[in-house]
């Protein structure tokens, strides 16, 4: 598809966003309008906004590519995202969050926690955590989106960053949460359409649901058979007397040399190839027999626990820890305490809206995450066809999982799907980003400045201060995107998810469900969750099972301070949430039980909204 048509479609899309932002601006008159969309959001708009904020481009392209490597075991995350992220979040947390939030007149997630525990510190500290870490997370989304625009519309990366910031600035700063939610809903519809088409084409082209799954299940066997066919040719060039494992190791080493050569200039290339004649022979071999690379790749990941695309990895292996603790538990559970999502429950006027939002949210997440985690693994079946390369997806993508889904779409879907998928991805990124910017802005204005610094209940210029906060959030996110290396930003995103779960979840659950939880218990849990999470990510955890822990690497020169297994567990592969969340939960319970109960009047007041469903008394 030509860039001109893509650009025309993108312009139409931007015009629609700006129009919705303007509509929201016309309907925004008060703080509640700006912060909570007037507490009058339509259930469809609320559910779609929740869903599209939940799903960013990385959930589709990044995690879809990861699923092409890990396989369909990732479907556990789909299940958790629907069951925990939608059903439990809406039915169990949504009702209480909305009732308590309305009753204590909270406008932001930190404000809800601060008022429940009658603590300015909790509100300001939580706002501060959001203020420091969310711009890093937001810049990861912004960079992903700008990189996509760079390749699809052929617009310079820096210019893409500026354009995105300006467009979002227009509708988030002026339109507030109404602007964010209106545009989110439009974006959700585009995302839904794009992903359903993708699923239909994928299953259609691969012969239907069961045949395509069966082909994926049979793939490791097929890879082995094809390798056996090429084995006589391999044996001709491999050193004599090697067993299969040794031969595959030798091939892997030669393929690594070939990868290295690609990064060299021409003069060095010739010199290197002359010194490594075997690399040249292997290069010629894999041109004729690409299936050899498949066998080498699958053998490599099998050592890390991979057993096939439709089988769960071997327990206790690197693949198992990454899939189970980071992806499934970290993302699946972490979503419950995301401030930009929890605040959505306070935007509707009654439980009926939340009830009606549940099916919309469930179907939406299935169509997003489910499709990405089905199509990612199935892309292997497609690329294994001789006419599409005869190699598995990760080989086709040169080892970079981020390009698997775009490659698959370019190769397997008709040309007209290009602009549709571009809109799907732009929508996914922008809907997440706009909500992040809104939450950062409200944290600056409402939680940190008004409550933390001024200590006032309601500033007369609250909307203006928050607009300024959102504006500053956009500028900060833009600067971070330009200045900081992408590695640090990726680590910060993981930190943010871990922090939200470990620092906020026990306090959030206690705030809504446990009257005995005290201010001291909440503060201790917040600090313990933050501290343990931060320490774990900085000194112990190798994010994605391989990246060095940031401070352990820079201060001590080691990838982790816990390289060896303890009690048979490789702790450096375990996600921070698995350690920090139990610690912060235990701290919350123990400190609450050891400290004096909060004033019964205050606790009664906080729970009054939930008890009656219709509060009667102000304070």
């Amino acid at each position, binding site marked *: 598809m030509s860039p001109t048509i893509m650009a025309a479609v993108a312009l139409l899309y931007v015009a629609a966003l700006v129009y919705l932002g303007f509509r929201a601006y016309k309907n925004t*008159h*008060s*703080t*509640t*309008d700006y912060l909570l969309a007037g*507490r009058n959001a339509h259930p469809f708009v609320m559910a779609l906004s929740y869903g599209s904020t939940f799903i960013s481009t990385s959930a589709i392209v990044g995690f879809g590519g990861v699923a092409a490597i890990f*396989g*369909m*075991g990732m*479907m*556990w995350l*789909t*299940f958790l995202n*629907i*069951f925990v992220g*939608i*059903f439990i979040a809406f*039915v169990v947390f949504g009702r209480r969050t909305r009732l308590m939030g*309305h*009753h204590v*007149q909270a406008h932001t997630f930190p404000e809800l926690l601060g008022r429940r525990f009658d603590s300015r510190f909790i509100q300001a500290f939580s706002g501060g955590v959001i203020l420091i870490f969310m711009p890093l997370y937001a810049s990861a989304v912004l960079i992903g989106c700008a990189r996509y625009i760079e390749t699809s519309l052929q617009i310079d990366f820096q210019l893409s960053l500026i354009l995105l910031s300006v467009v979002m600035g227009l509708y988030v700063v002026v339109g507030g949460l109404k602007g964010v939610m209106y545009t989110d809903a439009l974006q959700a519809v585009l995302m839904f359409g794009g992903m359903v088409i993708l699923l239909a084409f994928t299953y259609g082209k691969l012969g239907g*649901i*069961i045949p*395509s*799954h*069966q*082909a*994926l*299940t049979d793939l490791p066997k097929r890879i082995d058979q094809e390798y056996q066919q090429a084995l006589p040719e391999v044996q001709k060039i491999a050193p004599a007397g090697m067993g299969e494992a040794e031969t595959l190791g030798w091939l892997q080493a030669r393929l690594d040399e070939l990868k290295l050569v690609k990064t060299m200039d021409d003069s060095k290339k010739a010199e290197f190839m002359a010194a490594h004649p075997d690399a040249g022979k292997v290069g010629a071999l894999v041109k004729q027999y690409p299936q050899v690379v498949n066998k080498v790749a699958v053998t490599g990941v099998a050592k890390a626990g991979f057993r096939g695309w*439709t*089988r*769960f990895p071997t327990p206790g292996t690197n693949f198992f820890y990454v899939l189970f603790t980071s992806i499934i538990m970290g993302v699946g559970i972490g979503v419950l305490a995301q401030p930009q999502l929890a605040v959505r429950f306070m935007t509707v*006027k*009654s*439980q*009926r*809206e*939340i*009830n*009606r*939002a*549940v*099916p*919309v*949210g*469930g*179907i939406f*997440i*299935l169509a997003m995450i*489910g499709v990405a985690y089905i199509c990612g693994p199935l892309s292997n079946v497609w690329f294994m066809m001789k006419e599409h390369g005869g190699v598995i997806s990760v080989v086709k993508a040169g080892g970079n999982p981020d390009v698997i889904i775009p490659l698959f779409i370019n190769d397997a879907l008709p040309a007209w799907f290009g602009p549709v998928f571009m809109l799907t991805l732009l929508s996914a990124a922008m809907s997440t980003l706009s909500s992040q910017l809104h939450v950062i802005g409200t944290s600056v204005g409402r939680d940190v400045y008004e409550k933390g610094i001024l200590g006032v209940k*309601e500033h*007369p*210029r609250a909307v*203006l201060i928050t607009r300024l906060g959102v504006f500053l959030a956009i500028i900060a996110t833009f600067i971070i995107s330009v200045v900081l290396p992408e590695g640090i930003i990726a680590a910060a995103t993981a930190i943010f998810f871990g922090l939200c779960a470990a620092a906020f979840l026990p306090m959030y659950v206690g705030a809504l469900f446990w009257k005995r939880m005290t201010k001291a218990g909440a503060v201790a849990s917040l600090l313990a969750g933050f501290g343990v999470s931060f320490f774990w990510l900085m000194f112990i955890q190798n994010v994605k099972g391989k990246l060095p822990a940031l401070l352990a690497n820079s201060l001590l020169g080691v990838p982790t301070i816990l390289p060896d297994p303890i009690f048979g567990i490789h702790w450096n592969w375990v996600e921070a949430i698995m350690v920090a969340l139990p610690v912060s939960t235990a701290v919350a319970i123990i400190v609450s039980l050891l400290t004096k109960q909060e004033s019964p009047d205050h606790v009664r007041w906080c729970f009054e909204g939930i008890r009656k*469903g*219709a*509060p*009667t*008394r*102000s304070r």
Partner: protein
Amino acid sequence: MLGIDDFWVWSAYLLSLLSTLLCIAYGAVMWNRGDEVPSNETAQWAEEEDKLGKEL
């Protein structure tokens, strides 16, 4: 099951579909429940907001 051999994988596939069905069933049963009359406090809140808006 569904062309997938491993119980731990096909069960996740089925659970994803079943949890979506659960969401749909919940929505269908609860569609008209949970409507509330705006509370005194909400009304008072809206009044204060209007006043504030006018002042701004």
